[in-house]
C-alpha cells in the first residue's frame, strides 16, 4: 500500500508535517492563554483607566463599548475571530489601534533582539569551540580557570545592571555613545552589548561543554587517526555533532532574550515593545496586552520551530527517532 511505504521513505517530510501540526496547535493554545491571562487578573481595568472620579455610568458605557460585559466565551470567540482576520482592537488607554502601536514599536524591538541574537551566536560559537579545543584533556588549567570564571561572572550579571553600568561609563562619563533612545548606528551599541554579553558568556560555556563532550567521543579519535587537518577535524567532524545541543539551547536563549529586551529597553528608553509590556499588563489594557503576549509567544514558538527543522536536517537520527 502506498501509504506506509511513502511514510517510511520520506521521514523528513513526515517530520516537517508533524512539527507543523504541533506549531499550529501551540499557536492556538497561545491564543487561548493570551486571552485567559489578561482576563484572569483581578480588578476592573476600565474603572482604573477612567479614574476613581468617573461616574459609574461612564464606566459601564465604556465597558459596553469594549464588549467587556459579554460572557467570556463570546468575548473569546470574538477575539479569536478578530485575530485571525488581523484585527487586534484598540487600546482603551491611549485610544490608538493596537496594530498601529505595535507596528511602530515592534521593528525596534525586533532589530535590537535580532542583532543581539546574531552577535550572540556569531561570537559564542567560535569562542566556546576555541576554549574547548585549547583546554581539552585538562590542558592549560590556567586558561580553563580564566574562561570559567570570566564567563561565569558575566553570565550572572543582570542585563539591566550591565546596561546602567555601560551608560554610566560610556555615555555619561566618556560620552562616546548616546545616552538613550534610538538614533543611528551608534545608539545600538550599548543596548546590544548589554543584551549580549551575559548570553555570549552563558552560551560560550555551553558550547565549550558540548564541544568537549564531542571531542571525547570515539569518532573524534577516528578522525584524529586519519590525521586530518585541524580545520576539517573541528569543523566537519566536531561542529555538526555539538551543534544539535547548542542550537536547542540557542533557541531557548531567544526566549530569554525577549525578557532581557524588556529590561534593557527600559534602561535605554528604546521605543520598542519592552517599554509598554509591563505597563499594558498591569493596566490590563486588554487589547494591547493580549496582542503583545500573542506576538512574543508566537515569535518564540516559530523560532523554536525553525530550530527544530534545522536540527532535523542536521541530526538525522533524531528525525527518525521522533517520527
Amino acid at each position: 500500500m502506498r501509504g506506509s511505504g511513502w511514510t517510511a521513505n520520506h521521514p523528513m517530510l513526515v517530520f516537517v508535517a508533524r512539527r507543523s501540526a504541533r506549531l499550529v496547535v501551540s499557536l492556538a493554545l497561545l491564543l487561548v492563554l493570551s486571552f485567559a491571562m489578561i482576563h484572569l487578573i483581578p480588578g476592573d481595568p476600565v474603572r482604573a483607566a477612567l479614574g476613581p472620579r468617573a461616574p459609574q455610568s461612564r464606566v459601564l458605557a465604556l465597558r459596553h463599548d469594549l464588549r467587556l460585559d459579554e460572557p467570556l466565551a463570546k468575548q473569546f470567540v470574538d477575539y479569536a475571530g478578530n485575530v485571525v482576520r488581523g484585527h487586534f482592537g484598540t487600546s482603551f488607554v491611549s485610544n490608538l489601534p493596537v496594530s498601529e502601536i505595535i507596528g511602530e514599536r515592534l521593528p525596534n524591538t525586533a532589530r535590537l533582539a535580532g542583532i543581539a541574537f546574531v552577535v550572540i551566536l556569531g561570537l559564542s560559537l567560535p569562542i566556546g569551540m576555541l576554549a574547548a579545543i585549547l583546554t581539552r584533556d585538562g590542558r592549560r588549567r590556567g586558561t580553563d580557570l580564566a574562561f570559567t570564571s570570566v564567563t561565569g561572572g558575566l553570565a550572572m550579571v543582570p542585563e539591566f545592571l550591565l546596561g546602567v553600568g555601560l551608560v554610566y561609563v560610556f555615555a555619561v562619563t566618556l560620552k562616546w555613545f548616546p545616552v538613550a533612545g534610538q538614533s543611528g548606528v551608534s545608539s545600538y551599541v550599548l543596548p546590544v552589548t548589554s543584551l549580549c554579553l551575559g548570553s555570549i558568556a552563558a552560551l560560550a560555556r555551553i558550547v565549550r561543554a558540548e564541544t568537549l563532550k564531542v571531542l571525547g567521543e570515539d569518532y573524534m579519535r577516528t578522525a584524529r587517526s586519519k590525521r586530518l587537518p585541524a580545520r576539517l577535524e573541528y569543523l566537519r567532524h566536531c561542529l555538526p555533532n555539538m551543534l544539535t545541543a547548542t542550537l536547542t539551547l540557542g533557541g531557548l536563549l531567544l526566549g530569554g532574550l525577549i525578557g532581557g529586551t524588556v529590561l534593557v529597553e527600559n534602561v535605554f528608553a528604546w521605543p520598542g515593545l519592552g517599554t509598554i509590556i509591563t505597563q499594558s499588563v498591569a493596566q490590563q489594557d486588554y487589547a494591547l496586552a493580549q496582542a503583545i503576549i500573542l506576538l512574543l509567544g508566537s515569535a518564540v514558538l516559530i523560532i523554536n520551530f525553525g530550530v527544530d527543522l534545522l536540527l532535523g536536517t542536521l541530526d538525522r537520527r533524531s528525525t527518525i527517532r521522533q517520527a
Partner: protein
Amino acid sequence: MTRGRRSGALGAALRTPTGAIAALLLAALLVLALVGPLIWGHEARAIDVANMLQGGSSAHPLGTDNLGRDLLARVLVACRLSLALAVLATLVGAVIGIPWGALPVVLGRRGARFVNASIDFSVAFPSLLLAIFLAVVLGAGALAAVLALGLVSAPAFARLTQTLAASVAGSDYVAAARVLGVPRSRVLARHVLPNVAEPLILNVTLTVGYALLSIAGLSFLGLGVQPPDYDWGRLLQDGLQRIYVTPGAALGPAVAIVIAGLAFNGLGEALARAASTRPAVRKRPRRGTAATVADGAPVEDAVLDVAGLTVAFPTPDGPVTPVRGVSLAVGPGEIVGIVGESGSGKSLTALAIAQLVPAPGETAAQRLRIAGRDVRAIPAAERRRLLGTSVAMVFQDPTASLNPALRVGRQLAEVAEVHGGARRSEAMRMAVERLRTVRIPAPERRARRFPHELSGGMRQRAMIAMGLMGSPRLIIADEPTSALDVTVQQQILRLLRQVSDETGAALIFISHDMAVVAELCQRVLVMYAGRVVEELDVATLLSAPAHPYTRALLASVPEMATDRDQPLATIPGRPPEPHEVPEGCPFAPRCPLADDRCRTQLPMLRELAPGQAAACWHPQADPAPVGGIAAEGCG
C-alpha cells in the same frame, strides 16, 4: 551509580581549583545565611533618619538607605532570604518539572507525545511575561515570586529530564528490559532516574544561580519581595535608582548576587567535570621501574619496529605507566596478535604505536619505526601522511567510532582527499571501491547512508574499508570483533585475513579472546600488567607455552567437551591496576609457582627457543593442556 562513585565525584570536584573556590564560597554563603541575621540583624534594623541616603564612609562602607540603616549590614542579612527564595523557587521548579519530564517514559506512545508537546510549548512561552502575570495575579510578594519562578523554571527541568530520559530510554538495555516485560515504572525508577540524576543535580545547582537573578529581575520590576522584607533583588532595585550618585548602594547587592551565582555555577560545573572524567587515583602507586628491555637491534624490512614503548600518565600521586617497555617487530604481511586481560595495556600499546595516546598521557620509546621511518624524527607534515596512510586503525566499537553526522562515503573519501590529493568525485569512487573490497553489498547506495543506517557488521567493514583508503602497510585492529555477535565475528575475521593476504598489509590483532587470536594469528604476544610476558608463534602457543600466565589463559578457555560438572577454570585473583603493580614479577601474586625471587626480582623477556621468549624465572617446558582451542593454525 554507586555511592562510592558519587562521593568520589564530589571529592574530585573539590580538588580542582574551580570546585574548591566555589565550594568555599558556597560554604561561606551558607554560614552567612545562617548567622548573618543574628550578627548584623540589629545593625540592619537600626533607623537613623538624620543620616539617610549617605554614600560610602568608614562608618558605613556601602552607605545608608532611606531610613539611615547601614547598607552593608542589610546586604549581609539579606543573604538568608535571597538564598532561601532562590532555592525554594528551584525546588518548586524541580518538583514540578522533573516528574513532568519523566512522564513520557511511563506513558504509552500517545500519552508521551502529548506530554512532550506540552513541554515544548511551555518552554517556548516567554518566561518573563508569565512571571509578571503570575506576580500580578498572586499579588506581589515573596510567595508569589517563588511560585511564579518555580512555575516558570519547571518547563526547563521538564525538558532536560525529557531529553535525558529519552536518550536513556532509547538505549539497548532499557529496550531489553521492556521486552522482558519489566513494567514501565520500574524501568523509570531503576534505569532511567539513576542515570539522569547526575545531570539533573548539576542543573539544579545551576538553576539556583539563575533563580537568584530572576528574582532580582522581578524585584527590579517591583513584583518581588515587599517591605518590610528585603532580599538582594529589592536592595538592588532601591540602589539602582541611586547608582550615579551613591554607587555603593547598587554595587553591594549586585556583587553579592554575582558571587552567589558564581559559587553555585562553579560548584555545578566542577561536579559535572568530575563526574565525567576518570576517577582520580587514590592510592599511592608503587613506582614501577621504567622498562629497559634488552636492546634488540633494529629489525630490517620491518613494517613496524618498536622497542621500549612506554606510556605514562601523570597523576597527583606520581606518574602511572600502563605500558612498560613493550617491544615488537612486525614484518610485511605478518599477522601478530596481542592478547591479555582487561587492563593489561594492550589497547594503549596499539594507540601508542599509532601516536594516538590522548593527553595528558605521554608516549616514549627507544625506537619507533614505521615502514622504515623513524616516526619521531621526521617532520610533522610527513609524519601526518605516514600515519594517515600507512597505518590503519580499526577500533572496537564501530558505532561509536564512525561520525554519526557524516555519511559513510564522506568519511572514507576524505582520507583520499586529504592525503591523496584526490578530487571529490575521484575520492568518492575510491571509497565505493573500498566498500566493495570489504564485501559490503550495494556499496554505491551504502556510501550515501549514515552510519546508523548500517548494521553492526557492515559498520565494522566500513571501518576497515576506511583504513584501506590509504593503502596501509600496517593495520592495527583493537578488539574489532568484541562488539559484534558471533556469526558476524567470523565474517570479520575472515575479512581481515583476506585483506592482509590481498594487500600485503601487516596486521596487529588485539584481543582478550585467546581463541580468536589463536585462530587468526601467526605470532602472539601475551601482555600482563603493561609488559609482554611471553612472545611465541601460534603452534608453540597451542602446544607448549612457557609462561604460567599463558598456560592459565589457555586453560580457562572452555570447549564444547569441557566437563560441565566441574567449575569453569579461572585464574584466581585479578590483574593489578597500573598504579598498584608490585615489585618483582607482576604475575607473582597469582602464580602457583611463585617464589621469593619472583616476588622481588622482575624477570626480563628472554629467548627460550627460536620463536619463543618469556619473562619468567620458572618457564615451563612441558606440553600444556590445551583447553578448547582447536589447533587450526593459520598462515
